[in-house]
C-alpha cells in the first residue's frame, strides 16, 4: 500500500504542438502584454477604422427622416391588441393586466377596455378575434400587438397570419408572450423557450422581445410577471405609421342603435341609424370627412360630436404615481363603467342581479331609524322606485314648476369616473316619443333653473348621483324642497337590454355642459384639454341640433338660442350676421365683404380671388367675367418724375437709408396686422374651399387677429427662445437615445448628425409656430380649421347602415371606422361589379386613340336607302351602337388598380385569374376578381392565367383608389373553417390609373388561302369584320415561326359565296 501511495503520479504532459497548445498560450500572452485591455481597445488602425465605420453604420441606420407630429394635446389611448390562437389565454392576460392597473377584476372581456395606466398614458386593450376579418381590422388599429403563443404547443398559424397582416398594414410594435410554459423539467422548458425565441426572431428581427408567463396561480398569471409585462408596455415608444398618421380613424368602443323605434318595429330589416363612440386617432377629423366602416361600407357622417372623455388622464399635479381614484377604466361593451354619457343623455347601467327593489315604506323607516338622517341619494332612489303612474298620466296631472328654490351647496366626495356630476336626474324611457312628449314641460323647467344658476355662478348645485352598486351615493342630505321637484320630473323606465337593466337618465344638453364646466372648476381638476372640449361642445351644439331638426320640437329652439347666447360672441357673426351654410353663396359673400373691408388698403387685394371691385353692378359682372390675376391699375398713376415722390420711396432701395428701412420693417410689423390678416384669410380660404360649411364663422378671426397680433408675435418669440434654450441645454426627448449613444461620433460625424439635428429643430420650430398660430384663434374658428383633434372622444352618428350591422353586432369583434383621404372614395367601383347600368360615355383616351377617326369613317361609310333625314338619323343610330360596342371593348379594363403581388409561399395553391379573392387595402376589405399579368422585357403586360410559383407578378382589379405603396393582403375566403394558412398573397399598390393595358396571348387557327411574297390572306381566323378591325396591327406569330401583323380585312380573292368567311391579311416581315 505504502509503495503504491509513494509511487508518483505521472505528471500531466502539456501539448507542445497542435491546436490545444496554441489555444492555451493565447490568453496568457495577452495578459502579459496588455496590462489593461480596456484602456487599449485595439492596436491596429485598420481595425479601429473598421470598428468605427461599423458603429457609424449602426448609428446611421437608426436615423429616420424626422416627421412633423401634428397631434396636439393628449394622445388617444394606445391600443394594445392581444392576439393568439384560441385557448391560449388572451382574455386571462387582459384580465390580469386590468387587475394590475386598476385593482378591479373583470368578469368578462367584451370589446375594448380603456384604462388609465399612468399619469400621462392610457391604454386600450382589445382582444383580437380569430376570424380573418377581425384579425385584419385589429392589425389596422393596433399600436402594440401582444402575440400570445402556447409554449406547450409551439407556434400556431394564427400568429403567423397575424404577423403577415401586421407587416402589410404598417408594422406596429410587436411583443411575443409565451404562455403555458410549466412542467417539472426545467431544462426542457429552457430549451423550448430558446427554440421558440429563435423562431420568433427570424420572423420579426433578432432580439425581438419575447415574454414568458409561467403557469397559473389561483387561475391567474403570476402577479410579478404581469407587473413586468405592464412595465414593458408602459415604457414602449411608438413610431408613427404613415398610413395612420395621414388618416383619421376611430376604434369603436361603444355602439348604439338610434333608429327611431317605430321604424325598426314596422320593418325589422330597415336601414338603421347608429352611433359609434371612440377615441379619435391618426389625424384630425373634420365634419365633412367621409368614413369607411370596415366590413360595412362608406358613409357620410350624419353627426360628429365630441363627448367628455370617459377616461381622462389625471391632472398634472406633482405627485408620484396614480391615486386610486384616478385608476379609471372604461369598458362599456363589457358592461362596465356604469355611467355612460351621450350627447344629450346619461345612461346608467345596472346589472340584472344587482337590481333589488326595496319596500319603500318599511325600510325607509328603518333606515332613518338607523342613520338618523335620511340620505339624499337613498331618498331619491326610493322616490324613483315608487312609480305609480305612467308617464302620460303623470304628464296630465303635473303642473309646471317654474322656479324651484335653490338648494344648498353640497359637495360630492367620491372622485371616481362614475361620479361625474349630474345635476338634475331624470330617468325616462329610452323611447323617443315618450321623451319628446315629456320633455316639453320638463325642459322648460330645466331651462329656467339653468338661467337662474348661471346668474349666481359661484353657487354650485348639488350633484346627485344614482349609483347602482356598492359605493352608494354619499350625497349629503338635501332639503326636502328639492325632492318633490325631482320626483315630479324624474321618471323611471326599466328596460331589458342585452340582459342588463338599463335606465336612461335624461337631462338637457346645456345643463350637461354647464355642469361639466362647473365640475371642472369644482374639482380643481383643471385639465386644460377636457375643459376646452367642453367649450367646444358648447359651440357645436347648435349646429348639431340643426342637423337633427326632424325630431326637435319647439323647446329645443329656445335651447339653441340659449346656447348661442352663451357662446362667446364671434366678431365675424356680429359683423356679417349668422353663418350661412350654403357654400357658394356664402363664399361669394365672404369675398364681397372682404372686398369692402380691404377697401382702405388697395394693395392687399388678392387679385386672383377678388377682382377689382367697382361700384356699378353691370360693370362688376364684366370684371368678374374677365378673371385674371393681374392688377388692373385703378389707382391713378403717380408721376414718379416728381422729386418728392421719388424721395418718398428712396428708403425702399439700397441707395436709401438702411436704418430707416430697418425701422420700416419693424413698424410695418406692428402696423401691418392687415398683412397677417391677409395671411389668415388665406388659411381660411383653404377651409372654405375644401369644406363647405359655415365659412362666415371661419372668417371671424380676421378681426380678432387684429387685437392679438402683437401679443402673438411676442409669444412666438418667447416660444422660440424657450425652444432654443431647451435645445442647448438638453436634447429634445426624442433625441436622447440618439445623442447619448452617438456622442463619440459627434466628433467625426459632425456634419451628418448636425444636419439631422437641424432638421429636427426646424420641424420642432414649425410645430411650435403652428401651435402658436392656432392657439390664437378662438375655439370655433379653430375647430373649423382643424377639425376635431386627435385624442378626443367622439360620437359619430351614421345613418342608413344595413340592419345586419346591428343585428349581428358582436362586441368581441372590434369595429373600425377609418376616415377616407382625398379621392379615396373616388371610384364607383361597385357600380361595375354590381352591374348597374353605366351611362354611355366615351373616354378621352378612346377618342385620342390613333385609329379613332378611321374607325368612325369606316362605320359611317355604308349605304342606307331612304329619305335624307331618315338616312342621317339611321346612320347616327348605327354609329352610336358601334361606338358603344367598341368603347366597351376598349375601356373594359378601366379603373383598375395594379398591384405587385406575390402569392404567399405558405399558401398551397397558385392563384388563378378572375378567381375572386378578398383583399384588404387601406381601411377597406373587399372581394374582387384580379387579373394577373407579368411585365415582359419589352414593357408589355402579358396576362397570366395563373400566378407564377415563386415570383412577383402584377394583379389588376377594380377598386377604390389608394395611394401607391399601400400594402395589400389577400385571402381567399373568410369563412371559419380554416385552410392551413389563410393568407393567400401579399402585395403592394404600384400606381393607380384609370386604365391599365394588359395583353392577352390568343391562339387562332386560320387557313392561308392566297400567298404573295410578303403577304398572305388567311381565312377563317376571325369570325367578324369587327373582330378583325379590333386586331388590326396586332403582331402575330405562327407556330413555325413566321412573324407578321394583321393588316386589314380583305375581300380579295375570296371567291367564297358565304359571307361569313372572313380573311385576315398577314404580312411577314
Amino acid at each position, binding site marked *: 500500500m505504502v509503495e503504491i501511495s509513494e509511487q508518483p503520479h505521472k505528471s500531466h504532459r502539456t501539448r507542445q504542438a497542435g491546436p490545444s497548445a496554441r489555444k492555451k498560450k493565447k490568453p496568457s500572452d495577452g495578459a502579459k502584454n496588455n496590462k489593461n485591455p480596456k484602456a487599449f481597445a485595439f492596436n491596429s488602425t485598420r481595425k479601429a477604422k473598421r470598428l468605427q465605420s461599423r458603429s457609424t453604420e449602426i448609428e446611421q441606420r437608426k436615423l429616420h427622416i424626422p416627421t412633423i407630429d*401634428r397631434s396636439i394635446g393628449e394622445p388617444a389611448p394606445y391600443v394594445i391588441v392581444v392576439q393568439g390562437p384560441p385557448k391560449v389565454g388572451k382574455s386571462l392576460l387582459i384580465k390580469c393586466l386590468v387587475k394590475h392597473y386598476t385593482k378591479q377584476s373583470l368578469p368578462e372581456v367584451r370589446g375594448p377596455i380603456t384604462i388609465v395606466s399612468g399619469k400621462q398614458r392610457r391604454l386600450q386593450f382589445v382582444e383580437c378575434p380569430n376570424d380573418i376579418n377581425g384579425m385584419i381590422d385589429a392589425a389596422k388599429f393596433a399600436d402594440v400587438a401582444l402575440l400570445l403563443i402556447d409554449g406547450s404547443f409551439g407556434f400556431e398559424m394564427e400568429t403567423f397570419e397575424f404577423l403577415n397582416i401586421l407587416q402589410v398594414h404598417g408594422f406596429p410594435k410587436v411583443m411575443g408572450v409565451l404562455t403555458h410554459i410549466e412542467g417539472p423539467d426545467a431544462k426542457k422548458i429552457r430549451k423550448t423557450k430558446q427554440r421558440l425565441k429563435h423562431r420568433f426572431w427570424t420572423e420579426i428581427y433578432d432580439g425581438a422581445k419575447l415574454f414568458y408567463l409561467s403557469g397559473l396561480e389561483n387561475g391567474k398569471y403570476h402577479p410579478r410577471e404581469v407587473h413586468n409585462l405592464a412595465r414593458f408596455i408602459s415604457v414602449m415608444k411608438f413610431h408613427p405609421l404613415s398610413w395612420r398618421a395621414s388618416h383619421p380613424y376611430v376604434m369603436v368602443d361603444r355602439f348604439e342603435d338610434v333608429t327611431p323605434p317605430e321604424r325598426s318595429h314596422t320593418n325589422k330589416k330597415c336601414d338603421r341609424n347608429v352611433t359609434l363612440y371612440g377615441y379619435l386617432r391618426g389625424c384630425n377629423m373634420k365634419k365633412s370627412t*367621409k368614413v369607411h366602416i370596415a366590413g*360595412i*361600407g*362608406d*358613409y*357620410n357622417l350624419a353627426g360628429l360630436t365630441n363627448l367628455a372623455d370617459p377616461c381622462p388622464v389625471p391632472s398634472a399635479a406633482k405627485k408620484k404615481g396614480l391615486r386610486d381614484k384616478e385608476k379609471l377604466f372604461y369598458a362599456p361593451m363589457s358592461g362596465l363603467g356604469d355611467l355612460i354619457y351621450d350627447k344629450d343623455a346619461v345612461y346608467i347601467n345596472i346589472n340584472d342581479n344587482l337590481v333589488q327593489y326595496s319596500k319603500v315604506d318599511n325600510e325607509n323607516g328603518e333606515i332613518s331609524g338607523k342613520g338618523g338622517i335620511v340620505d339624499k341619494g337613498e331618498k331619491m332612489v326610493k322616490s324613483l322606485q315608487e312609480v305609480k303612474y305612467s308617464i302620460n298620466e303623470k304628464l296630465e296631472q303635473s303642473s309646471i314648476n317654474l322656479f324651484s328654490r335653490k338648494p344648498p351647496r353640497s359637495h360630492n366626495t367620491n372622485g371616481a369616473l362614475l361620479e361625474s356630476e349630474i345635476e338634475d336626474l331624470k330617468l325616462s324611457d329610452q323611447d323617443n316619443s315618450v321623451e319628446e312628449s315629456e320633455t316639453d314641460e320638463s325642459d322648460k323647467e330645466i331651462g329656467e333653473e339653468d338661467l337662474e344658476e348661471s346668474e349666481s355662478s359661484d353657487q354650485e348645485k348639488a350633484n346627485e348621483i344614482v349609483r347602482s352598486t356598492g359605493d352608494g351615493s354619499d350625497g349629503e342630505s338635501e332639503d326636502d324642497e328639492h325632492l318633490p321637484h325631482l320626483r315630479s320630473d324624474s321618471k323611471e323606465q326599466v328596460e331589458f337590454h342585452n340582459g342588463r337593466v338599463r335606465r336612461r337618465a335624461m337631462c338637457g344638453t346645456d345643463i350637461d355642459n354647464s355642469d361639466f364646466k362647473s365640475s371642472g372648476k369644482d374639482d380643481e381638476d383643471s385639465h386644460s384639454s377636457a375643459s376646452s372640449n367642453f367649450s367646444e361642445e358648447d359651440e357645436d351644439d347648435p349646429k348639431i341640433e340643426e342637423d337633427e331638426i326632424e325630431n326637435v320640437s319647439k323647446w329645443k329652439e329656445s335651447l339653441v338660442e340659449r346656447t348661442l347666447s352663451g357662446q362667446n360672441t364671434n366678431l365675424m357673426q356680429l359683423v356679417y350676421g349668422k353663418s350661412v351654410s350654403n*357654400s*357658394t*353663396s356664402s363664399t361669394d359673400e365672404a369675398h364681397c365683404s372682404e372686398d369692402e373691408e380691404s377697401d382702405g388698403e388697395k*394693395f*392687399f*387685394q*388678392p*387679385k*386672383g*380671388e377678388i*377682382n377689382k371691385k367697382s361700384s356699378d353692378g353691370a360693370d362688376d359682372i364684366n370684371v*368678374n*367675367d374677365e378673371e385674371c*390675376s*393681374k*392688377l388692373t*391699375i385703378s389707382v391713378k*398713376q403717380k408721376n*414718379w418724375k416728381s422729386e418728392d415722390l*421719388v424721395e418718398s*420711396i*428712396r428708403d*425702399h*432701395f*439700397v*441707395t*436709401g437709408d*438702411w436704418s430707416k428701412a430697418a425701422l420700416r*420693417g419693424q413698424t410695418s410689423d406692428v402696423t401691418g396686422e392687415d*398683412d*397677417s390678416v391677409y*395671411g389668415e384669410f388665406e*388659411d381660411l*380660404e383653404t377651409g372654405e*374651399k375644401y369644406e*363647405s360649411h359655415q365659412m362666415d364663422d371661419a372668417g371671424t378671426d380676421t378681426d380678432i387677429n387684429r387685437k392679438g397680433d402683437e401679443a402673438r408675435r411676442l409669444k412666438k418669440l418667447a416660444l422660440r427662445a424657450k425652444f432654443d434654450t431647451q435645445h442647448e441645454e438638453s436634447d429634445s426627448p426624442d433625441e436622447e437615445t440618439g445623442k447619448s449613444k452617438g456622442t463619440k461620433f459627434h466628433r467625426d460625424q459632425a456634419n451628418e448628425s448636425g444636419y439631422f439635428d437641424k432638421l429636427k429643430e426646424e420641424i420642432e420650430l414649425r410645430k411650435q*409656430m403652428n401651435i402658436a398660430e392656432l392657439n390664437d384663434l378662438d375655439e370655433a374658428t379653430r375647430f373649423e380649421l382643424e377639425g376635431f383633434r386627435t385624442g378626443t372622444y367622439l360620437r359619430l352618428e351614421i345613418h342608413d347602415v*344595413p340592419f345586419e350591422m346591428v343585428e349581428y353586432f358582436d362586441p368581441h369583434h372590434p369595429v373600425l371606422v377609418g376616415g377616407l383621404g*382625398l*379621392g379615396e*372614395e373616388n371610384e*364607383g*367601383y*361597385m357600380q361595375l361589379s354590381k352591374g348597374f347600368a353605366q351611362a354611355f*360615355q366615351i373616354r*378621352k383616351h378612346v377618342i385620342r386613340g390613333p385609329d379613332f377617326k378611321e374607325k368612325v369613317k369606316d362605320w359611317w361609310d355604308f349605304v342606307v336607302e331612304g329619305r335624307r333625314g331618315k338616312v342621317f338619323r339611321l346612320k347616327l343610330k348605327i354609329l352610336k351602337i358601334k361606338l358603344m360596342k367598341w368603347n366597351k371593348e376598349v375601356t373594359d379594363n378601366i*379603373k383598375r388598380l395594379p398591384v405587385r403581388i406575390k402569392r404567399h409561399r405558405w399558401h398551397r395553391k397558385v392563384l388563378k385569374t378572375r378567381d375572386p379573392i378578398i383583399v384588404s387595402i387601406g381601411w*377597406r376589405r373587399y372581394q374582387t376578381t384580379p387579373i394577373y399579368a407579368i411585365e415582359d422585357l419589352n414593357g408589355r403586360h402579358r396576362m397570366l392565367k395563373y400566378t407564377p410559383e415563386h415570383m412577383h407578378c402584377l394583379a389588376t382589379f377594380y377598386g377604390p*383608389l389608394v395611394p401607391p405603396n399601400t400594402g395589400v393582403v389577400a385571402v381567399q375566403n373568410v369563412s371559419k373553417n380554416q385552410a392551413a394558412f389563410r393568407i393567400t398573397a401579399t402585395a403592394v399598390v404600384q400606381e*393607380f*390609373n*384609370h*386604365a391599365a393595358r394588359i395583353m392577352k396571348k390568343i391562339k387562332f387557327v386560320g387557313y392561308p388561302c392566297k400567298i404573295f411574297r410578303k403577304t398572305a390572306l388567311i381565312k377563317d381566323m376571325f369570325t367578324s369584320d369587327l373582330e378583325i378591325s379590333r386586331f388590326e396591327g396586332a403582331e402575330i406569330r405562327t407556330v413555325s415561326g413566321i412573324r407578321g401583323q394583321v393588316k386589314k380585312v380583305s375581300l380579295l380573292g375570296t371567291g367564297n359565296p358565304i359571307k361569313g368567311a372572313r380573311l385576315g391579311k398577314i404580312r411577314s416581315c
Partner: protein
Amino acid sequence: MERVMKKTYKRLKGSKYLRQRLLLSTLSTTPIIISDIRPDDMPPGLRYYEVELLKLFELISDGCVIELHDTATKFKYIPGVLMGGRNLVHDCGKYRSLGYFLEPLIVLGLFGKKPLSIKLLGITNDSKDPSVDTFRSTTLPMLKRFGIPSEGLELKIECRGSPPNGGGEVVLKVPVVQSSLSAVTWTDEGMVKRIRGTTFSTRVSSQFENTMIHAARGIFNRLLPDVHIFTDHKAGVQAGKSPGYGISLVAETTTGCFISTDTAVFQAKWKDEDEYEDDEKKELTPPEDLGEQAASVLLGEVEQGGVVDSTHQFVFVLYGMVLLDNYFIK
C-alpha cells in the same frame, strides 16, 4: 356588404373664379357642377378660353370627365388623376394670353405623377394677364421658396405672339414635388437692390424697345444705378402673327423678393369684343409712355411693400392652401 356612396357633387354657381374652382376641385378630387355661367350674356355660357382651360385640365389628367351642358352655362367636372407627362401640346387659343393658363399649370404640375412638360401655343404677352417674361423672371424663382426643386422648373419662350393673332409658343417644365411643399416664413421684404427687365417686340422695329428702355431707365436712374433691361427682338416665325411690343420689369430685393410688372401694346382688331375696342383701339401707347408707365407701376408696387407683388398673390394663396403648416407671408 360593402356599400357605395353616391357621388356627391359640389354645386357652384356663376362664372367667377373658374380657374380656382377647377384647380381646387382637382387637387381635392371633389367633383363639381358649376351652373349659371353668364346666363344673361350674349352669347351665354363659357367663353372660348374657359373651354380651352377645361381641355387643358383634361389633357394633363387621366380619367377626368367633363360634361358640358348644351348651352354651356352649366358643366360637370369630375377630376381625374393628375398625370403630367412629357411632350404635351395645347393650343390655348387667341382669346386669352398664356399667363391665364400657366398659373394653374404650375400648381397642378407639381402634384402629377410624372414631371410635366407641355408646349402651350397662343398669345404670350398682353396687357391683361401676366406675361411669360414675368413668369420666367419672377414666378419661377419664387416657387423655389416652397421647396420646389429648381432643376426641371423651366419656362422657355420659343416664339412670341401678340394679340390678336397670337402665334406664340412656350414650353413649360414643372417637376414633381416629392413629399410636400415646405412652409415658408417670409415677412421681410428687404430693399430693392437691382432692377432687371425684358422688352420684346414682334413685327415692329427693334427701335421701339430701346425707346422703352430709355424711358424706364429715366425714372429708375434717380433711385438705383443697377438697372439692366434686356431686349428681345423677335423676327420671322418667332415673332408670331401680330405686331406688338411690351416691357416686363422686376425689382429684386436684398432678401430675395421679386416684384414685377409688365405691360404690352398691341393692335386690337377684334370687332366682337367691345372692351378691346374701347380700351386699346383708339390709340396705341407710344413706347416711351409705355416704358414710363411700366416703371411707374413697378415703383408703385415697391412703395406698397410686401414680399410679393399683386400679380402673384394668387399663386401664393394657392400654395398656402396646399400646405399643411401655417405660413407667413407679408
